[in-house]
């Protein structure tokens, strides 16, 4: 058994051990230490398994447990190793962070059981070598995360969110099961190794693709299947949200790549699959960020950004599918690398953002941005880390988000003319959507950082906030360093990911990437595009230093006054921009898409010209919830009610139904 697989199985074993540890460990401190220590170990093991799997290759074994006639298989290939790396690189910092975050948590035992089980489920999915193991661990992941979402189940809101989450997770599980069943029918075995070799008819391949796309799309939160996401992420504990948004959505991406790219393969692709994925990616990217802009609940906002980033990942993967279908494997490999690069980037910076949000929530006790403000003075360390993540997610150099979005753009720009007019239109269209999403994301994080960390405190809680403890700071420092490293040294990292396109497309980009040394990232050739992150960083530091030196020359006395007061000493917290106000222009521009529910209430006293109070309220609902989920829910309820009355009323009715069933069956099968 190769080292990488041993490490991966050890990571799973440590998680299982952590989940069992409450049986012997009592006491809050002991359990907290066990949780963070064992999870951190699992994270480190997963990371090293990922690295060694990507560098020296993996292997597969038949596990000693499972059903007697249906043994379980574990398999670690380049794709799995990459996702192990993704899991490990967020699990480790989250484990460190949890040690501080759970200091005041009363009921830690359920967390100690379900967080490691959740991690185990995700690692198991990545390691699964057959459909049975995949589904088993998939369900473990879904169910244990349900218990984490409903951890604070004393609130009705949390239970509702948990229910919707469980419902949609099961729907997704059912669809994925259908996809595997279709593949099983073609291959005659649950083993992935056999499924890979089996050929499948185009019709059934499309069926398997659609089932997989909708199943994994639901779990990944692709618009319009994202309904559970903005409800479930805010209510979970913040470190759990970090894991869910950072890794669990990526595991869904993994499942999609596993089924569509690996088990079926580029030979089976049809052009409309690629168009569907590109359309889903584009709509998620723009829809997610538009809705994120309108939120004032910090964690809900971040949840919508997950939708956006999944869209960006899907744009990369969809472009790769399109290029692979039309026979451009090198460019397809570039698109795939872009998608995967964004996968790990998003895992890291979204994890960091959720941890930052958790730190803010921990100190202020609220998720509502309208009652925060000025936190940079009271929580400077958190503010810096949050800023790093915000710059990363806004795709600005020198951090990592820029690299992956830039690669995605390069793929779209270099895509030659393919297929008919529709396809020729959809590639630039998705690139344009990506650009729009990037710009809007930047606007959104200007809003978040400005409203939460800058300005004046809008509430007493925000005014009295304290900086979080060292463990939480360390937990946020690690991904912040990753963000910088991945942003500055993509040339060293891309050859690692290169194992995945080598496995799926049998081409390698390593040579062209390396062609100009470690300094310059040149995806295809230097004449078309190149980017040197270290140079960009150096330039930024020099220019920034010069500006600082020019603004703060030695010897000059600096007078600090209240911010944004424009010389007027009588400003108060309510006179600054708030979250709703900041997003007002974009709400106007995208009025048709958002359809906000606005009310202006003017109170006049004594005379119609004497306005005493103006109150503006706005509610931006999710159109998918309003026009898709609620009608389906209402329909289901009305059918259930009708069936219920049918149950209650009448032996005769029941007999009639039996009779009609008999007649129908006779007519059908005789």
């Amino acid at each position, binding site marked *: 058994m190769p080292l990488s697989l041993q490490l991966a199985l050890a990571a799973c074993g440590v998680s299982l051990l952590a989940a069992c540890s409450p049986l012997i460990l009592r006491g809050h401190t002991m359990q907290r230490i066990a949780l963070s220590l064992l999870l951190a170990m699992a994270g480190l093991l997963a990371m090293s398994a990922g690295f060694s799997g990507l560098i020296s290759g993996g292997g597969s074994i038949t596990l000693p447990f499972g059903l007697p006639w249906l043994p379980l298989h574990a398999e670690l290939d380049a794709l799995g190793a990459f996702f192990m790396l993704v899991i490990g690189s967020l699990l480790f910092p989250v484990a460190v962070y949890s040690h501080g975050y759970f200091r005041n948590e009363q009921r830690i035992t359920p967390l100690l059981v379900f967080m490691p089980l959740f991690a185990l489920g995700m690692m198991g999915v990545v390691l699964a070598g057959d459909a049975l193991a995949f589904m088993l661990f998939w369900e473990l992941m879904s169910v244990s995360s349900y218990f984490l979402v409903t951890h604070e189940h004393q609130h009705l809101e949390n239970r509702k969110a948990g229910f919707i989450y469980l419902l949609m997770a099961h729907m997704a599980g059912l669809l994925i099961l259908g996809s595997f069943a279709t593949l099983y029918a073609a291959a005659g075995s649950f083993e992935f190794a056999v499924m890979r070799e089996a050929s499948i008819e185009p019709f059934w391949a499309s069926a398997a693709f659609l089932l997989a796309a909708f199943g994994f799309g639901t779990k990944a939160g692709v618009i319009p299947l994202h309904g559970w996401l903005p409800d479930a992420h805010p209510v979970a504990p913040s470190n759990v949200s970090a894991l869910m948004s950072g890794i669990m959505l990526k595991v869904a991406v993994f499942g999609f790549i596993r089924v569509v790219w690996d088990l079926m393969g580029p030979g089976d692709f049809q052009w409309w699959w690629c168009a569907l994925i590109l359309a889903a990616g584009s709509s998620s990217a723009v829809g997610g960020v538009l809705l994120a802009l309108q939120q004032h609940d910090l964690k809900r906002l971040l949840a919508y950004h997950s939708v956006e980033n999944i869209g960006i990942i899907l744009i990369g993967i969809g472009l790769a599918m399109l290029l692979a279908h039309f026979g451009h494997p090198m460019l397809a490999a570039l698109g795939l690398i872009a998608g995967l690069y964004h996968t790990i980037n998003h895992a890291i910076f979204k994890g960091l953002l959720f941890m930052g949000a958790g730190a803010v929530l921990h100190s202020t006790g609220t998720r509502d941005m309208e009652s925060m403000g000025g936190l940079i003075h009271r929580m400077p360390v958190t503010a810096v880390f949050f800023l790093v993540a915000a710059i990363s997610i806004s795709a600005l150099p020198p951090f990592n988000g820029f690299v992956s979005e830039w690669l995605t753009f390069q793929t779209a720009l270099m895509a030659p003319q393919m297929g008919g007019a529709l396809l020729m239109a959809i590639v630039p269209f998705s690139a344009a959507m990506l650009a729009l999403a990037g710009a809007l994301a930047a606007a959104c994080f200007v809003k978040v950082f400005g409203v939460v960390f800058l300005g004046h405190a809008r509430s007493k809680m925000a005014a009295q906030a304290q900086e979080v403890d060292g463990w939480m700071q360390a937990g946020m420092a690690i991904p912040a360093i990753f963000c910088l490293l991945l942003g500055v040294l993509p040339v060293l990292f891309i050859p690692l990911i290169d194992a995945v396109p080598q496995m799926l497309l049998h081409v390698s980009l390593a040579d062209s990437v390396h062609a100009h040394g470690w300094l310059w990232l040149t995806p295809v050739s230097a004449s078309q595009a190149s980017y040197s992150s270290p140079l960009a960083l150096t330039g930024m530091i020099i220019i920034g230093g010069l500006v600082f030196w020019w603004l703060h020359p030695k010897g000059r006395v600096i007078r600090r006054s209240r911010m944004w007061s424009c010389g007027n000493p009588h400003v108060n917290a309510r006179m600054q921009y708030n979250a709703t106000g900041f997003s007002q222009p974009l709400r106007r521009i995208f009025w048709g898409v958002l359809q906000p529910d606005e009310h202006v209430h003017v109170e006049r006293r004594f005379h119609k010209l004497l306005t005493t109070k103006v109150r503006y309220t706005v509610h931006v609902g999710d159109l998918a919830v309003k026009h898709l989920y609620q009608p389906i829910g209402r329909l289901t309820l009305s059918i259930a009610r009708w069936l219920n009355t049918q149950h209650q009323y*009448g032996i*005769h009715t029941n*007999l009639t139904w039996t*009779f009609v069933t008999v007649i129908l069956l*006779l007519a059908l099968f005789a």
Partner: protein
Amino acid sequence: MIISFAQQLIDGLAALMLLVSFALLAQHRMLSVLHWFAAQGVLLSITAAVVAYSSGHDELYASAAMAFLLKGMLLPWLLWRVIRQLHVHREVEPLMNNAVTMMLALAITLFAFHVIHPIENISELMTRNTMSIATACVLLAMLMMMTRKKAITQVVGFLAVENSLFFAAIGATNGMPLIVEIGIAFDVLIAALIFGVFFFEIRNTFDSLEVDAMQASLVDKDDES
């Protein structure tokens, strides 16, 4: 020659069986419903005896005897006793206009023939022609359960379904194994007894044997709670 005579006889009996099923549907009075039900049992036992004689399956004689005693005599008598003791209104109360019911019954019979006809071509048995009639009888008895108000008529319908199934078994496979048949016969007997007990209980609880009345009071109870 004798086989073909027996076949004609069985076909004739099957036709009578269908006629009886229609007659059960068409009755207005409880007493005649029971009469026709008894006639159905007797017909069954004759059919079983004829099949036993012509095919040489001796155990079918036992089935025939059982059918005569149980279905021709005991069950109708039990039901009659229930009606008398409970002072049930002695009229069948249909939910549907009788003419419409008969039209439906006609359609169902046609449907049964249409559905079963392809199967009959496979069978080698001399009783194969009875298959479609037996199916029609099952469906007609179900129709009777559906369209009658009184619990007792529904029980008669249920027992008629059982009779038709018995008939189908004779037609399709020269009868079921004896042990199974005895088991079923006892089940039916017990069912009839239990139904009888239930009728008493139901009447005591709801003051009526009409299914609608039971529902009404159940619904009322739901509302109260």
